[in-house]
């Protein structure tokens, strides 16, 4: 079980590293996808190709490893919309998410990313604790 986690992590790190070696870019998903909506960003095409690659990866997972896409959490639509708003706005305002800050930035020992990762981990842990403590989810 930890073996899969470690192996998957190595692949994620390799993907991020190849993005840097080949294209010179940080593999941050919120930045790559959010950048599509930025009217001042030129050369957008690679962003769509990266997104298409993720979708193809999802198709391969669905075909060969369907259990990887299982979601056993029961969350109401209100929870899901609230989470979508917070993750969408928060990652763009904070200039990154788990991939850009948590992996690339932490590896580069970027002070911003180290702080961001500490903060989102802390608030993630706090949120799960609060939800369990006051039974805010089933």
């Amino acid at each position, binding site marked *: 079980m930890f073996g899969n986690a470690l192996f998957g992590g190595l692949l994620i790190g390799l993907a991020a590293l190849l993005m840097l070696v080949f294209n010179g870019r940080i593999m941050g998903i919120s930045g790559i996808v959010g950048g599509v909506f930025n009217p001042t960003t030129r050369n957008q095409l690679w962003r769509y190709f990266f997104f298409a690659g993720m979708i193809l990866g999802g198709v391969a997972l669905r075909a060969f490893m369907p259990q990887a896409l299982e979601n056993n959490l029961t969350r109401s639509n209100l929870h899901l919309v609230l989470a979508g708003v*917070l*993750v969408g706005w928060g990652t*763009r305002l904070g200039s990154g998410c788990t991939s850009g800050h948590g992996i*690339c930035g932490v590896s580069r020992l970027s002070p911003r990313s180290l*702080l961001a990762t500490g903060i989102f981990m802390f608030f993630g842990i706090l*949120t799960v604790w609060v*939800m369990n403590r006051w039974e805010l989810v089933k």
Partner: protein
Amino acid sequence: MNRENLSSLFCGFLFAIGLGISGMTQPQKVVGFLDLFGSWDPSLLFVMAGAVLVYSIGYRWVKKNRKPFFTSAFLIPTNRQLDSSLMLGSALFGIGWGIAGFCPGPALTSLVGLGHSVLVFAGTMLAVMLLFEKWQSRKAIR
């Protein structure tokens, strides 16, 4: 298709496969990892350890290159300001991550599963990312 786009496609694919194998695309595992004071599932710690191991070693080697293989220059953030946007944004993201167990990469990878939860979450997230850019460009004009 030029080489930059082809490598983007490949990296996106490899990233998604890594997410799937690691367990990151299963929100219950993410919430289990964040449930530090309950039934903690430490497995996702190994995901981060594996990814950071590869990237931190590779980054030191790549830095010695003058330029990337397929583009003209490295585009690496140089901002070192620990500003309030960074902190507030990261806090909001953490709360949302804890509520539904999705961060952007796994949510987009899981879209093809066509599950109700991921469609609602990712649809909202993308719409809000679009709104954020509108807000940013309005702020820039003023």
